């Protein structure tokens, strides 16, 4: 039984009915630091509990919800502006993650906060898209020559662009993982199975299975987990929504297999179930094809991941959390790039950090 308040609320919204006023004090802090405070508004709403809360708690939740509404407005408008900037070129823009959930008005987008917008473009058209965005007021965020070259050569995205006046950052990907990553995905297949949201402007999103596989690949190949719990909540909510469809699990397993993403799928299902009680049938996890060695290693991975899928709040962060984060950071880099490429990159990064410090 997990005794972290936020996780208890996420696992079972009805549990909040038993929280006393000081529990609420801590719960709101854990949620705020985890970028999940507006989500808490919707959790309370899901069990019709708002009117039972003291006014001051309702005020805080309503305030957070208003901020999330503003984020939604900003994202919808930015998508409109991107469509406008690209209206003269025949290109499909696939919106990823939060922007995709918002475009489809999925429940997972309720109370979701954004830091940037992620899009995916056919690699052949990416330079053209970048050119048109720059013509329409976007500028590159990464100025250094090294960064520019590094992104273009090794990454699955070009250096991010930011709109000069609106200051919203857009990450422009041509793949869901770097070409050097350990897992070799088939991006054409994902693009082919994407769906229209808005026919007129060529606004697209991945299929439900694609969205789920992508969010898992992203979370479990990443090295940073500052929004780890938030990202796991995304996975949980997507599963709860889509698994109602007949044949859902077979399709999901099939897609992960075709994309060589069985391992992220395994982790995604395992930890969302373990931590957030996501309804994943045991036999589905057993069916995922992963090696015996991988299953043995799980003892270690369980220990690491259980320390990062926690609220980003001091009431939950112990020393072992920093160590787990460090190991997962190294792992993330290793998964994205073989060592003979990774080490020179980290050296150059370290060197520029030193140089910057010296010159200040």
């Amino acid at each position, binding site marked *: 039984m997990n005794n972290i308040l936020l996780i208890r609320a996420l696992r079972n919204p009805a549990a909040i009915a038993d929280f006393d006023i000081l529990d609420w004090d801590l719960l709101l802090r854990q949620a705020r630091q985890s970028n999940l405070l507006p989500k808490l508004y919707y959790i309370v709403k899901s069990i019709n509990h708002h009117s039972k809360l003291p006014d001051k708690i309702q005020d805080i939740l309503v305030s957070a919800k208003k901020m999330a509404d*503003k984020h939604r*407005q900003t994202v919808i*408008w930015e998508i*409109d502006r991107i469509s406008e900037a690209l209206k003269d070129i025949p290109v499909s823009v696939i919106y990823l993650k939060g922007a995709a959930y918002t475009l489809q008005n999925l429940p997972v987008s309720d109370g979701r906060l954004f830091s940037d917008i992620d899009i995916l473009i056919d690699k052949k058209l990416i330079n053209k898209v970048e050119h048109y965005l720059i013509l329409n007021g976007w500028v590159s965020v990464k100025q250094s020559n090294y960064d520019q070259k590094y992104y273009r050569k090794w990454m699955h995205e070009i250096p991010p662009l930011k709109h000069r006046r609106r200051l919203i950052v857009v990450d422009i990907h041509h793949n869901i993982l770097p070409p050097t990553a350990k897992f070799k995905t088939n991006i054409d297949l994902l693009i082919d199975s994407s769906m229209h949201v808005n026919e007129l402007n060529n606004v697209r999103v991945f299929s439900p299975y694609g969205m789920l596989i992508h969010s898992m690949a992203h979370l479990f190949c990443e090295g940073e987990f500052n929004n780890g719990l938030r990202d796991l909540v995304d996975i949980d909510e997507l599963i709860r929504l889509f698994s109602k469809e007949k044949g859902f699990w077979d399709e999901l397993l099939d897609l992960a297999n075709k994309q060589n993403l069985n391992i992220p799928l395994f982790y995604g299902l395992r930890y969302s179930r373990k931590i957030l009680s996501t309804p994943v049938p045991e036999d589905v996890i057993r069916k995922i094809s992963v090696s015996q060695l991988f299953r043995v290693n799980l003892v270690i991975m369980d220990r690491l991941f259980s320390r990062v899928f926690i609220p980003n709040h001091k009431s939950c962060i112990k020393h072992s959390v920093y160590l787990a984060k460090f190991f997962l950071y190294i792992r993330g880099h290793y998964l994205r790039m073989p060592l003979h490429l990774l080490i020179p990159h980290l050296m150059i990064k370290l060197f520029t950090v030193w140089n910057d410090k010296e010159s200040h």
Partner: protein
Amino acid sequence: MSEYWEAVAGFEVLRKTWGSESAIYHTGSGDTQLLDELGIAILNLVQAQRLETEEIREHILRKHKVELEGDSLARLLAELNRSGVITRVQTP
């Protein structure tokens, strides 16, 4: 090729009028602007139909008996364009 102005579809524009002044709020961009009577008249024109800059100038002259200087009309249109209320379309 000619250049037209038209209202941006899909987003509501709220108005609040006090005498000759109106504040408008664009629910897409979140921008707020203050327009005088002529500004509102121009907005009404463009919201009703797609128009060229010169057509707008003629309408205003005919209906409101006001001759808009080149600059002031262009400035207002640019401002409405920036906040996403209207947009520029080109047709061959």
